[in-house]
Each structure stands twice: as C-alpha cells, then as structure tokens.
C-alpha cells in the first residue's frame, strides 16, 4: 500500500533512555553457553551495552519524563498538543490506554485526541502515518507521537537470542503541518500469517498468565524462556527482513522517482549490526549511509530505534541542515514500512537519560 503526503514535517525529536546500563559481559553469566561462543556472537551481532529500566518502570514513566523535560526547557507547551499517539507493545495496563494515562499524568487539556497503537519495530512509521493523516483536520495543529517500550521486563535473562539485544527507551516526535509542499512518499505491507515469528504467547486473553506460563522451558538450543516472555524465531525474522526490505525500498524510490544516490541516509530499524550490514550489501548502500550502531550502545528498543539512530548519529547536523532520509521499520505483525522524507532543520533533536 502506497501513501503520499505533503505539507507535513517533523519539527522536533527527543529520545529518552534509561540511565541503567548493562554490558554483554554482565549478561553472559545467565546464558547457558560457553563463553567463547557467546563472545563470537557479540562480535558478529554488535552486542555490547544496552539500556534497561531498573525495577518496575513503566512506559508512561519514560514518556512523562521526556514530556516534562520538553515542558521545562520551553520546547513544547502542554496546551499546544492537539493529539497524542502512543505506540507501544508494553502498555502500563490492558486498559485504560497508556495515552490516557499520560494525558492524565501530564494534565493535558480535554480537547485532545489520544490513541494507543499496538505496534513494534515498524511503529515509528505507523505512528507517522497516523499523525500525518490526522493533520488533515484543521482542529489539529500539533501531534505528539510517543514511541515507547519497556520490553526488557518481558524477556528472559536466560535467553541469549533476545536478552543481549533488548533495550528500553521512549521517543517523542513533534509532527506538524508545514508550508513545504515537497511530497513525502511511503509504503507499508503486513502479513499476519507470519504473526508467530515475534510474540509474547501468554498474558492476553488467549492465554492468560498463570503459574504455568511463568515456568522457564528450554527451547532445545539452551535458551530458557517462559510463555510469559518474548520469543523470536530468529531465522524467520532474519529471512523476512532480507527478502522483503530491499524490494520495499526499491518500490518506494520508484514511487518517488528518486535514486538511491539522492538519499542522504537510510535510517532503518536497528535489530542488530549483522542484519543491517547484510541489508546494506543487498541494496548496495554504503555502510556510512546506513547507521547500524544503535544496538551496541543502547540495545534494540523496537519502535524507538529509528529516533535513537537519528538522535545518536545526526543530532548536530539536523540542528542546522536538511537531509533526504529514507526510513524503514520492520518487525512484529509481521509489518514492514518505509518513508522518504526531508528531515531538518529540527527545533530540537536530543537524547536524555531517565533517572
């Protein structure tokens, strides 16, 4: 499915990462693998440090911390916010929506559109689609898009396939109308037949959490996780990304009438360094145009990984310059999406630690 937007802009971005940092070496003691084998994987995948919440910190805690920072710094005024989208797979509650929790905690006005979106690694793109669409309404002038996940709380520490890469984080993206008629192109695909490749089996209504769903089970490869935990079919996800993303980007560039060389940066979801390097090779994109350094510093924080890639790598440049960015997110659902848009100069682009 293709989308074309105009007169839309991202005007500011803030990423929030927990101050609590763990290293791969810290985690290794929990894995049931020889040290040498784990270290080899670390080298290939780019695992090193990751940022995780410490204790029972929830999605709204990270989000409100970031929003309060923007209010205190004078970068955003509460009364300006006409809509609040919260994209998360780790809501504070099954009900009410986390967007309502955040609205209430921040004392935002009642004349506001609040909505949760259950999406993961493509969630930044899905959130932008929704924000751009809502800005068709004249009553909506400023949309706050919050991507947030605290999925480390749902990953087994004895799962070497998932735990070393997981990261917790939030991002706040301000989306507004702009006077710039430059077209923004986007596309999106979904395949629910492959939904079990990434899932948390228990905890919803299909399989409520119980003492049985909390029992750790060996997956046959020495990883131990419970049905309450996130499970990822690594082979299926890797193959999905390598097969689906290069043609998605080729279609996007064709739709836009643009060439790969015109794109300044390919800012993709950050699952791990190896997967992104293989994507860059397949697409014949120079590695310096496709950052793959988020996992080693912060971990993979699902829908927040693209905002972190932007803030970590481009915050200084985006303070004064404009780039042509190709964004792409891919993951749970399965869902994959991309967008070609001008980005910057931004009123703010920063990253702060959650204490």
């Amino acid at each position, binding site marked *: 499915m293709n989308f074309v937007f105009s007169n839309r802009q991202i005007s500011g971005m803030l990423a929030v990462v927990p101050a609590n940092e763990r290293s791969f070496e810290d985690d290794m003691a929990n894995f049931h693998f020889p040290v040498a084998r784990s270290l080899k994987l670390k080298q290939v*995948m780019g695992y090193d440090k990751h940022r995780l919440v410490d204790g029972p910190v929830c999605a709204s805690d990270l989000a409100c911390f970031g929003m309060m920072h923007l209010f205190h710094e004078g970068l955003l005024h509460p009364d300006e916010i006409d809509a609040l989208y919260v994209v998360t797979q780790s809501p504070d509650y099954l009900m009410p929506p986390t967007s309502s929790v955040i609205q209430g905690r921040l004392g935002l006005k009642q004349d506001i559109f609040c909505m949760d979106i259950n999406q993961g690694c493509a969630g930044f793109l899905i959130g932008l689609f929704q924000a751009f669409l809502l800005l068709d309404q004249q009553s909506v002038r400023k949309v706050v898009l919050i991507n947030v996940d605290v999925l480390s709380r749902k990953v087994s520490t004895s799962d070497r396939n998932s735990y070393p890469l997981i990261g917790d984080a939030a991002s706040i993206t301000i989306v507004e109308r702009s006077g710039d008629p430059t077209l923004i192109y986007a596309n999106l695909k979904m395949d629910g037949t492959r939904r079990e490749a990434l899932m948390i089996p228990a905890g919803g209504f299909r399989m409520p959490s119980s003492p049985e769903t909390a029992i750790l089970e060996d997956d046959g490869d020495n990883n131990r996780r419970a049905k309450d935990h996130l499970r990822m079919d690594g082979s299926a996800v890797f*193959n999905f990304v*390598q097969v689906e993303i290069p043609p998605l980007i080729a279609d996007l560039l064709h739709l836009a009438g643009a060439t790969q060389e015109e794109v300044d940066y390919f800012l993709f979801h950050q699952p791990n360094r*190896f997967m992104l390097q*293989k994507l860059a*090779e397949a697409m014949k994109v120079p590695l310096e145009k496709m950052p793959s350094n988020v996992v080693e510093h912060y971990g993979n924080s699902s829908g927040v990984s693209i905002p972190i890639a932007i803030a970590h790598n481009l915050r200084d440049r985006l303070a004064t310059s404009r780039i042509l960015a190709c964004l792409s997110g891919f993951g749970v659902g399965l869902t994959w999406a991309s967008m070609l848009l001008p980005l910057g100069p931004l009123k703010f682009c920063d990253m702060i630690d959650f204490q």
Partner: protein
Amino acid sequence: MASERTIEQVLKQIRPEFDFTASQDFIGDGMLDSYDVITLVAELDNTYAILIPGIDILPENFQNIAAIEQLVRKHVSNHELRLQ
C-alpha cells in the same frame, strides 16, 4: 577455493565439541542453531572474501559440509566473475 577441510575447520571453531563429518543435518541434529549459522556466515565471508547474501541464509544451505561448500563455491564464482 572452498574445500571440505577448510569448511570443517571453520565449523570446529564455532562448535568444537562436534564432529561435523559425522552428520548430514547439522541443524536437525542440534549442532548449529540459528545464531551459529550467522556466526558461520561471518566467518565464511572473512575466510573466502565473499559476501553471502542475506537471502541465502536459509537452513537448507547449512545442513551439511557439502551444502555449505556449494554455497561458498557459488559466491566465490560470483566474486571472481565480478573481478574479471
């Protein structure tokens, strides 16, 4: 050029506890998991100066030494062709 001996040595670096000449189904026999396959691809890329594409990282290409050798040969040939 890829040889069974070199591939066996690369495999032994990753999982020294197994005799890879004794199995025809490394994944089915629990000798390689999906993350070992990724480590193996990185090692083969370095050893043979090739770039095995992500779409070729499929279980059937890593079932046994003959399958791995065939995969490496295909990409060594492509690499040599590109250099000509």
